């Protein structure tokens, strides 16, 4: 069992495997997105309180969930890399980060657009949005640290330590921001609380979340293939690749 796992830990073996998986995940993402959007835009009814604006949740909530999920997965691969010294784990973490940051950015943007018509301000410093903003800073920190260190091995390991410190802190940060928010609020309003859900709304959200998940996997696999080529550029197996020979 160990042998099989470590074989896939080699970039050379993983590269073609990832190449085969990408179309699968992209197709799943596209199909799920189509279904989810159909439910969200055409089947789900108008909300009693929020009218049509609530339909933003079909983008906002999946993006927010993915932003947090990707960070945890990224931290997981960092931990594996530090513990087992496998290069590919670090590459996978590095591949996940930009997609995670993108999901965070989408969550922040859509959350702001949802907040303005519903509660009157573009940015309301509520607990979830503020935590999401800090999560974006954590992603940016990870990518900045990695970019600032020239030696790839040191960059991988330093960023990995940072990611682990971040993942431990995220619950503490969320709890603190929640406290801060309830303390300073006049009216108790939860900016991004979803309306009490009709079943179709929930389904739409879940399917879009799955679509986002499939997409994230595909994007990360695409990115990791480029990272592998960049890092292994001197290797013979890279030189033998049809896509390289055909250049």
């Amino acid at each position, binding site marked *: 069992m160990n042998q099989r796992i470590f074989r896939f830990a080699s970039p050379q073996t993983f590269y073609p495997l990832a190449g085969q998986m990408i179309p699968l995940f992209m197709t799943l993402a596209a199909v799920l997105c189509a279904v989810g959007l159909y439910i969200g835009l055409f089947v789900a009814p108008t909300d009693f309180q929020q009218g049509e604006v609530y339909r933003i949740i079909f983008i906002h909530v999946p993006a927010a969930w993915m932003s947090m999920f990707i960070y945890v997965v990224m931290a997981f691969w960092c931990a594996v890399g530090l513990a087992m010294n496998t290069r590919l784990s670090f590459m996978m973490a590095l591949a996940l980060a930009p997609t995670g940051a993108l999901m965070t950015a989408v969550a922040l943007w859509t959350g702001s*657009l949802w907040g303005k018509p519903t509660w009157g301000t573009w940015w309301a410093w509520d607990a979830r949005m503020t935590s999401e903003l800090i999560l974006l800073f954590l992603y940016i920190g990870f990518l900045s640290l990695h970019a600032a260190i020239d030696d790839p091995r040191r960059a991988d390991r330093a960023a990995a330590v940072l990611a682990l410190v971040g993942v431990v802190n995220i619950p503490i940060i969320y709890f603190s921001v929640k406290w801060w928010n309830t303390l300073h609020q006049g009216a108790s309003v939860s900016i991004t609380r979803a309306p009490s859900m009709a079943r179709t709304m929930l389904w739409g959200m879940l399917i879009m979340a799955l679509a986002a998940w499939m997409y994230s996997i595909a*994007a990360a696999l695409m990115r990791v293939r480029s990272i592998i080529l960049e890092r292994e550029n001197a290797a013979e197996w890279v030189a033998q690749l049809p896509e390289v020979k055909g250049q």
Partner: protein
Amino acid sequence: MTWGSAAEFLAMGGRAFFVWGSYAVAAALIAAELLLLRGRRRTLLARLGRSLRHKHDDS
């Protein structure tokens, strides 16, 4: 089906800016990510191909 007409659908109860603004930006960011990924791969493959040809020319 909740919409009476296409115009209703696009109007989103008067909140078109917010709803479509959200969907459009999300789509744009994802498209940008995919384009950037494709560009990165292309540049990389071209660079690898060039350096291989130079190696063969030198030898």
